[in-house]
């Protein structure tokens, strides 16, 4: 297993007065796609948000590339090279696709070459370049959300349930995009409920329950073990979500 | 017995109880403890504004509804009485016609405001009430023929409530505590100081009016205390904490909020009526002014939002400060050069500057207000005492 680019140790986090995370230990290997699995309410989204600095950390440490980023303000964490695609996609619906992308290019004007690559991955974005992002379909919005995260080279991508509510054809396109990212050695921490999608892309996996990580290891270990899946996720391979 | 009167809502702080008793005694025996017109008029104002501020606390402290239209309802009550005695003479009948008309108008307007809050979110509501109150003020100021415009109206209160009426033939004795103490300090002889402190009180209709006001003020306060500790009051507090959850629990929050606004408005109107009868003169500045609205806000917050006792303490403290702080500042600059920066900053006209500063600082550092802070200290003292007892309670094991 590769070296960890991101590590969480004993992380506790609150949202308002609710304790959501009760000591999360997680190692995310560099250059791989790690899937974070678990039932609803296990704390997966909160873990991503906590890494990003969007929740109140009450204990533990978050380290990125060896540097302690616990409790730092969100913009600073983002600038260190972490991109976040939230569950609700977080696109600015009143802005055009172009404006969304311009904003995402934090370090200057849009890189033509990279933009072409993004258009290759997600053609609708080029087609609806000057239209308000709110007018896009669900799948197109998801493409935009991911495109924003990759328009500038980032070392770590945090993605929260990208396939939620999408048609299989689009899920396929997304999988293709993630494959390309893997080839580029981008580290991805992916929260997913769709086990097939996870199995296809994931190299490492971790399972959460009740605000903590209860299992972590290689994806193949989990994928080949029906009993383990039942125990951790309450389903078997091939079962519909 | 106290439990029923106070509806189970105790001061919960010895210091606060002492303060309230002090204020209560001063108000109850006021005309016989503090000589002079200025003191008498201030006592009346404190009683009137306790009603105003307590009813405002119902909205602000217990339901977190910010409204800037409270002075509007106060003014409706005051002008109602003023206009009806102007039109129908100085009998009690005219007074009650005025009260009736004012209350009806207040109910209608507060209903409108309550319904408006349906359409707009809370933060809009505050601004909308500000605009509506301003429109009302402008209307009153403009309709010179009916309301006397900026000159205002003199209130022809009934003879029995005025200075000419004498219910008692002889006068009653009064004893000025302040004069007694200053006499003691100055001269040292108890007998002499005692004699200086005694003064004559010629009981008139004005005293009658004062005690009517005092009684109503006390009654309204206890009524509000009962209301906020009733099921209705608990729903208001639930709305304050989390309206969405209150709705999810099945409460039609719009009804409750509107009810709070209406009750608050009617009580303010009542206070306006008393103000008109006591002050015997109403004009836009002393009833509808935005500055007055800010004062009400100040009194409520400084006293302590959401406590009702805060209204009593805040009103007393504020009105005393308003009256006597200016004297204090005047003393401070009496030796300073006129026109110098010090004189400008600390002059008696600038009392509002310092009060405003104190207000802002208190919002940051003492957001609970005087009452809230006293209760907090009392609670901490109780906790420290509980820690010292040998038998540890089972709750203490969790940390």
């Amino acid at each position, binding site marked *: 297993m590769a070296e960890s680019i991101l590590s969480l140790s004993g992380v506790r986090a609150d949202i308002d007065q609710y304790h959501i995370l009760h000591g999360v230990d997680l190692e995310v290997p560099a250059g791989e796609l790690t899937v974070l699995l678990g039932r609803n309410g296990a704390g997966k989204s909160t873990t991503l948000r906590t890494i990003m600095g969007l929740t109140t950390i009450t204990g533990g440490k978050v380290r990125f590339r060896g540097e302690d980023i616990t409790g730092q303000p969100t913009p600073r964490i983002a*600038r260190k090279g972490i991109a976040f695609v939230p569950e609700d996609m977080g696109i600015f619906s009143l802005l055009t696709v172009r404006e969304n992308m311009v904003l995402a290019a934090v370090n200057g004007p849009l890189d033509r070459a990279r933009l072409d690559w993004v258009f290759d991955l997600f053609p609708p974005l080029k087609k609806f370049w000057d239209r308000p992002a709110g007018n896009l379909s669900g799948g197109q919005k998801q493409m935009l959300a991911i495109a924003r995260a990759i328009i500038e080279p980032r070392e770590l991508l945090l993605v929260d349930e990208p396939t939620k509510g999408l048609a299989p054809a689009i899920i396929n396109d997304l999988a293709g995009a993630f494959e390309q990212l893997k080839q580029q050695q981008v580290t991805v921490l992916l929260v997913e409920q769709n086990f097939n999608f996870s199995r296809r892309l994931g190299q490492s996996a971790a399972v959460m329950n009740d605000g903590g990580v209860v299992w972590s290891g290689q994806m193949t270990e989990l994928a080949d073990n029906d009993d383990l899946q039942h125990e951790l996720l309450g389903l078997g391979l091939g079962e519909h979500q | 017995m106290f439990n029923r009167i106070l509806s189970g809502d105790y001061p919960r702080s010895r210091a606060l109880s002492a303060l309230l008793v002090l204020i209560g005694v001063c108000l109850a025996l006021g005309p016989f403890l503090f000589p002079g017109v200025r003191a008498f008029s201030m006592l009346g104002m404190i009683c009137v504004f306790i009603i105003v501020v307590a009813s405002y606390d119902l909205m602000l402290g217990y339901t977190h509804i910010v409204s800037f239209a409270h002075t509007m309802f106060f003014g409706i009550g005051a002008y109602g009485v003023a206009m009806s005695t102007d039109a129908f003479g100085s009998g009690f009948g005219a007074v009650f016609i005025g009260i009736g008309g004012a209350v009806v108008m207040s109910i209608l307007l507060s209903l409108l405001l309550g319904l408006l809050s349906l359409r707009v979110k809370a933060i809009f509501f505050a601004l909308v009430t500000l605009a509506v109150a301003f*429109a009302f003020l402008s209307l009153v100021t403009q309709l010179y023929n009916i309301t006397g415009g900026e000159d205002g109206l003199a209130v022809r209160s009934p003879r029995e409530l005025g200075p000419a009426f004498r219910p008692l033939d002889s006068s009653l004795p009064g004893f000025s505590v302040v004069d007694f103490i200053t006499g003691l300090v100055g001269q040292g002889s108890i007998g002499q100081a005692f004699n200086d402190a005694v003064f004559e009180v010629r009981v008139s209709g004005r005293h009658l009016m004062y005690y009517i006001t005092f009684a109503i003020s006390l009654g309204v306060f206890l009524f509000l205390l009962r209301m906020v500790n009733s099921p209705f009051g608990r729903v208001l507090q639930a709305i304050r904490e989390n309206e969405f959850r209150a709705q999810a629990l099945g409460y039609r929050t719009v009804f409750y909020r509107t009810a709070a606004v209406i009750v608050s408005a009617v009580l303010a109107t009542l206070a306006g009526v008393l103000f008109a009868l006591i002050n015997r003169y109403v004009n836009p500045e002393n009833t509808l002014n935005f500055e007055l609205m800010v004062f009400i806000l100040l009194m409520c917050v400084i006293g302590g939002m959401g406590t009702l006792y805060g209204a009593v303490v805040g009103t007393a403290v504020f009105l005393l400060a308003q009256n006597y702080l200016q004297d204090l500042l005047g003393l401070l600059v009496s030796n300073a050069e006129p026109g110098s920066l010090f004189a400008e900053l600390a002059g008696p006209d600038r009392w509002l500057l310092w009060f405003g500063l104190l207000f802002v600082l208190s919002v940051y550092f003492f957001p609970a207000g005087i009452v809230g802070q006293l209760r907090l200290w009392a609670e901490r003292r109780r906790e420290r005492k509980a820690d010292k007892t040998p038998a540890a309670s089972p709750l203490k094991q969790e940390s």
Partner: protein
Amino acid sequence: MSAHDEMIGQATPPQGVLARFAAFRENKPHIFLLLLMMAVALLMMDPRTWVLLTISGLAMGAMVFLMASGMTLTFGLMNVLNLAHGAFISLGAFAGASVLLWLSSQASEPSLLINLAAILPALGFALVVAGLLGLVFERLVIKPVYGDHLKQILVTVGGSIIIMELIHVVWGPNEIPVPRPEALTGAFLLPDALPVIGGVALEKYRLIAVVLGLAIYGLMTWIIERTRVGILIRAGVESREMVEVQGYRIRLLFLGVFVAGSALAGLGGAMWAMYREIITAHMGDELMISVIVVIILGGLGSIKGCFYGAVLVGLINLYVGYLEPRLAAVATVGLMVGVLMWRPQGLIPVIKV
């Protein structure tokens, strides 16, 4: 690929006059209301008075727009309710007036060029003073109470009192007359030859106010629509959190917007000072009512809504002020209540409140 290539929200245009009218009323309520108001007013007075009042109303609208634009952006972007905004207006008026009075020799010359040597520093000083106060105010007073609307109301009301009292300390408690610069007094006469409106006198200052207001509206719209900062502001109005996730320090943007808004308020105050030619510390309070009506009417966070709202408020003030002066304030507030009933979010809503 084409199956999921469609965009949502592409309706066919309505057919028929009635349907198009209803669509116009729905899609462009601001223009609809504006035309309606102007038409009704025209029916109630003779055309010459109408022209005069409309120009005056537009002038007032332009100045109120300056004052209100800062507040709507602050509220829309930062979700901060600053009730001390009126005090910034007053401060700008006093600062500008001071410079103007100090340079009164230049101001009293008939030449416009020489006047500008007094006007521009006055306006500039008003901008700078109000902006600086905005900076201090945001850091000191507002920052500790982000997210708490109740506390914001309380501290900004208190702050407003303090600022106005300080104005009294510095400039004294009395009202101060502000003579208008010489070249801006008087009026242009429309040529007699024009039908209906020939010979009408258009006050110079009012025309200048309208031009300035339009210019600043144009500038603000350009910034918001075309520059990166504008994109950032519009994004921030939608979601502060996501802007931070992208890596932008939105707190700095907040500060910038607040300072700009305060500066504009000061500018509006200074312009109002030369319009009314007299200033008091509490003028900001009275103007705040108009500002509040404008931002609620127009829709929070929307510059376009603010502009149209200000124009509507200016016009209704002048029209009703002529027809029934005692009801001018009531009519303005009544307009707000009426629009709220029709459109609870305002005419051109940007954010969901």
